[in-house]
């Protein structure tokens, strides 16, 4: 698979209903060639429906799908040239790893020698050399997962779809495998669409994330972008932990600030574009951006009372009842908590604050 062969993928106005339930509402999206794109969202948000429609396992009510200039949604699944990795891998239990990987090549009538060559190439890519003659049941969960990926990549598909492929792995393995997958994708330059409900997976692996909610796209952007500047309340709440405080936007001399009902004033570093002075907003502060000040000078910023502290290893979660901002949660490096205790009065400063519209 050479990058110049790869073609961009375009989804245009995909619409899907199940009975009265709108699963997908006029979804349009451009996927760049060679990109690792993730559909992220809670269950029922339409991400798997989109994937199934692209693969041809479901039929949309309206809308089109293009690979480059070629329309593919009129083709049956077998002729779309899409590699699909199922959630449970669906490795053929009666075939060896080699036969599983070669299946797509066999269907495309590749000559036997080229098939064998390609299978070895794939086994090397997913680091399973020498495992070719095993049956899927003889492999560990992580190995099965890699065979499923190799099988989907083998026939040089225009697009690879991964349907929550990590959800059947245990937590420790999942961390390893997501980096593996990322590396395999980088090496193969394969246009890849990954579906997950796990925001960490999405943040770690993707070039771009499509955040979905109730059949619609909430936000598209790089992981950094989604984390630092969520565009909606949903995005702010779904990706990463966040403190949301209702407030009103104030713009003075091009400087944005949030003013809460109890007249606390916080400077905003970033604001979703299009918000005007006086707009209702949610002020979003990430727990790690709340700094706790103890001892002298603690009366400067806004004050708070420590309610509870939850030790998690490298960091400690500190639950606070602030003066005027309601309850907040801060995440403090474990080495910085000396001197903080439940019931104590502390001062707070915000390293970064962001605003999203509030309706």
């Amino acid at each position, binding site marked *: 698979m050479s990058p110049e062969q790869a073609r961009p993928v375009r989804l245009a106005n995909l619409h899907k209903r199940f009975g009265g339930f709108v699963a997908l509402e006029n979804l349009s999206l451009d996927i760049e060639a060679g990109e690792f794109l993730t559909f992220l969202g809670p269950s029922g948000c339409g991400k798997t429906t989109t994937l199934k429609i692209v*693969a*041809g*396992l479901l039929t949309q009510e309206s809308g089109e799908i293009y690979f480059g200039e070629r329309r593919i949604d009129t083709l*049956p*699944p*077998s*002729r*779309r*040239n*899409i*590699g*699909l990795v*199922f959630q*449970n891998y*669906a490795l*053929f*239990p*009666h075939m060896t790893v080699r036969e599983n990987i070669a*299946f*797509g090549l066999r*269907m*495309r009538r590749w000559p036997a020698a080229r098939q064998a060559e390609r299978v070895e190439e794939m086994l090397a890519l997913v680091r399973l050399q020498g495992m070719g003659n095993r049956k899927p049941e003889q492999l560990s969960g992580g190995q099965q997962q890699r065979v499923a990926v190799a*099988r*989907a990549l083998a*026939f040089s598909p225009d697009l690879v779809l991964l349907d929550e492929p990590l959800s059947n792995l245990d937590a420790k393995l999942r961390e390893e495998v997501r980096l593996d997958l990322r590396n395999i994708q980088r090496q193969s330059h394969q246009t890849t669409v990954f579906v997950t409900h796990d925001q960490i997976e999405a943040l770690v692996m993707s070039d771009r994330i499509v955040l979905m909610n109730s059949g619609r796209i909430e936000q598209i952007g790089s992981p950094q972008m989604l984390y630092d500047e969520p565009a909606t309340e949903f995005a702010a709440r779904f990706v990463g932990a966040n403190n949301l405080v209702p407030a009103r936007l104030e713009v003075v001399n091009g400087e944005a600030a949030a003013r809460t009902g109890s007249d606390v004033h916080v400077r905003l570093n970033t604001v979703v574009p299009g918000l005007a002075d006086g707009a209702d907003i949610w002020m979003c502060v990430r727990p790690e951006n709340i700094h706790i000040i103890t001892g002298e000078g603690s009366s400067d910023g806004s004050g708070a009372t420590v309610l509870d502290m939850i030790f998690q290893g490298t960091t400690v979660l500190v639950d606070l009842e602030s003066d005027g901002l309601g309850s907040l949660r801060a995440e403090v490096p474990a080495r910085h908590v000396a001197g903080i205790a439940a019931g104590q009065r502390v001062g707070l400063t915000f390293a970064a604050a962001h605003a999203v519209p509030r309706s």
Partner: protein
Amino acid sequence: MPRGLLRVFANLGWTVYVVAIVTWLLFPLSLILLSSFQGTISITTDVSNLNVSAYEAIPDRYWNSLWFTVQISVVATVTALLVSVPAAWAMVRGKLAERRFLSNVVLLPDVVPHIILGIALLTLYLQIGLARTWLGMLLAMLSLSLAMGLRFTEALLEGLPEEYELAAETMGANKLQALVLILMPLMAPGLATAALFIFISNMVTFELLFFISGPNASPIAVRLFSDIIDRGIMPHSVAMASIMIYISIAFYVIVALTLGPKYLAGSTVSRKG
């Protein structure tokens, strides 16, 4: 102390009960076997002169009936599976609106009492000349095998995740290739089991075939029945009854060897319901 005594009595009670029931289930059958080797229906406790004279005396018409039964059982079993695999595939994977209805139609011969279906088939066969013929018997057996076959194959397919076929399709296989390359190999062991069970239940079918059988088309169960009516119980019919017991034992040995003993319990073996 009395607690321990109670336990002893309880265990004793269980043992007596189990021995009694198992004896009751095995004793009558062992009488058949004993009688077949004593060559008489008047069984004695004398086991010194066991012989196979009763087996040697089995007349040709018995062997013909047995062979006839094996033949139509095999043909009915194979045909039923050939027909029910695509049907089950259509019903399980097709998501047709009328699936339940279609499925129930095919399962109907299982619900209608066999004796009544036998009478109904006789009525029909008399009008179209199929009564007391090989083909007539085969078709009757087929209706039953088909119901069983569909039940088995539907359960098999429902146990196989659709992802296998879908995976094959996304990799470029058409529906037929998915069926032949993926589904059939995955179903093969289950189909072999199904074949075994359908075959043996065909072998022992009586009520369905009794009314439509004739002198030249007489399954072994019907033959054993008619002879007892016509001539009373004879040593050679007891010998043939023993052979049926051997066949049943052989069936369970094969099942136990190929599938393991756990398949012997439970409702998978159930002929109805």
